[in-house]
């Protein structure tokens, strides 16, 4: 892995998204570059390819064509271990063993760094209690994952991603199943988490209010193709949001 200094943390060149070579989702190759130090919103209607792009980014689905570079490393050439050092992930619908306690779940965030024969560090003994305190989650540590509300659970998954200390956090529609109040709580936690250390955030969402308020960069997909990539201000001032929703072209 050679490290080249650029001003972009994520670069796509001639990217074709899809699950099978025979039926690609994108008709045209995708090119974009996203600058450092940004909260990037990945927007688009359902089926526009948001989740596919995210799955390509974490190496779960192969790229049909083109290249995707994360911090100047080509995703295809990264092993899972390399990847775990770069990306932390918050899934859309969390899967978890239902009677696992929150603190034991959070300990799993240290799995990549831990020695195979050793123990995972305990949440209470490490400095993560500061983070958990600031996210207002410390009272949940002894509850099981199925005994807390969806909003709390999603914030626990955010805390999990933060504990990974990766330079990029990818969130796949994290507020999809949350009510308005829980969504607000989640966004607040996210912005607070971001303020604790410098990192990149890529977040796919339908919540354009949040995009307008907190994001810096917008990546819009439509029918599997790139529709818009640019600063948030341009996205909203040129009414790309309305064009994205409209059915023609």
């Amino acid at each position, binding site marked *: 892995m050679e490290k080249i200094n650029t001003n972009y943390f994520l670069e796509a060149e001639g990217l074709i998204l899809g699950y099978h070579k025979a039926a690609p989702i994108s008709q045209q190759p995708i090119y974009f570059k996203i600058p450092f130090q940004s909260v990037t919103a990945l927007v688009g209607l359902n089926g526009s390819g948001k989740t596919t792009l995210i*799955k390509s980014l*974490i*190496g*779960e689905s192969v790229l049909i064509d083109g290249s995707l570079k994360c911090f100047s490393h080509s995703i295809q050439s990264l092993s*899972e*271990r390399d*990847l*775990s*050092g770069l*990306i*932390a*992930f918050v*899934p859309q619908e*969390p*899967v*978890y*063993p239902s*009677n*696992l*306690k929150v603190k*034991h779940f959070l*300990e*799993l965030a240290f*799995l*990549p760094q*831990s020695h*195979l*024969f050793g123990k*995972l560090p305990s949440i209470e003994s490490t400095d993560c209690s500061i983070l958990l305190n600031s996210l207002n989650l410390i009272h949940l540590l002894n509850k*099981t994952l199925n005994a807390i509300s969806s909003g709390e659970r999603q914030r626990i998954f955010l805390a999990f991603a933060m504990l*990974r200390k*990766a330079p990029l956090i990818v969130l*796949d529609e994290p507020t999809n199943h949350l009510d308005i109040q829980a969504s607000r709580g989640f966004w607040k936690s996210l912005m607070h988490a971001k303020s604790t250390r410098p990192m990149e955030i890529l977040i796919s969402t339908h919540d354009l209010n949040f995009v307008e308020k907190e994001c810096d960069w917008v990546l819009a997909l439509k029918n599997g193709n790139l529709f818009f990539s640019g600063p948030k201000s341009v996205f909203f001032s040129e009414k790309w949001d309305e064009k994205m929703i409209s059915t023609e072209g």
Partner: protein
Amino acid sequence: MKNKFLSSALGLGFIFVLVLLLFCGGERLSIRALWNFNDPYSIDHHLLWSLRIPRLILVFGIGGALAMLGATYQILFHNPLAEPYLLGVSSAVTLGIVISETLLGWAALTPQAFGMGFLFALSVITILILCYYWKTIKNMERIVLFGMGVNFVFSSALFILLSYHNQSNGGGSLRWLFGNIPWLNLNQSMVFISLVLPLCFTLWILGRYLDGLSLGDSMARTLGFSPSRMRTFLLVLTSLLLTVITSISGAIGFIGLVVPHAIRLWVQPPSSRYLLGLSFLIGALFLCLSDSLSRALLPPLEFPIGIVTTLLGGPLFLYLLWKK
């Protein structure tokens, strides 16, 4: 501090019970046999070193490994009803051995019969892994269905063979259907346990990745390992372990399914490693107890062990379920 005290007390109790079980069985064994090495030809010495100790070692390994396998499959397949015999590997082993017994005239527990069972198991594992890799089998539910299919085919073949064979010749092969623990000598038991323990230890070490897998494939991937490769490895490892066990004892039911659940009800395991480790110990203890009971109840009769485990464990499990 209190925790350490408790666990060492439990550990000591565990060993004590195991030693106690040596004196439980069809024949009376005086406690002096433990330190009486002077007379290697005495009945006590023979009873202890040629029968009871090898048997205990064997049963310990089988019980522990079965409970551990059950726990692993329950996590791996996200299925609370998963048990060690899910994938059809055990019915393949059984069929291989019964074929060698009935058609080829090689008795069970001979190297040829083992080889045959191993060959059958290996072919099932290979087909399974190839299907998984070529994406013919896309997800874990499909693997379970594949196992069900294999189980149906092989057990019906087994029934045909056994019913044909039993009419012309005693009923010896029937024990493969219910599970039965054979009498091995000390060397054989040691070979068995030295195969089983390393496999179990590897499985226990990989318990951490089971935790990762239980969070879904995307999460597993960003936790630094390939979920499909890890799953393949786990399937091969567990199948090997199961092959070793079933080729000795046939399919002993109940333990693999219920012991992990009883542990989940009893304590809330903080991690898969914890669950796997405890499953091994409790499973081993439980099968040793059941085995001693099966021999001590109506000597010299020996109850089929599967019936005793169910009789003993069923009510215990219902009690745990009711209490929580």
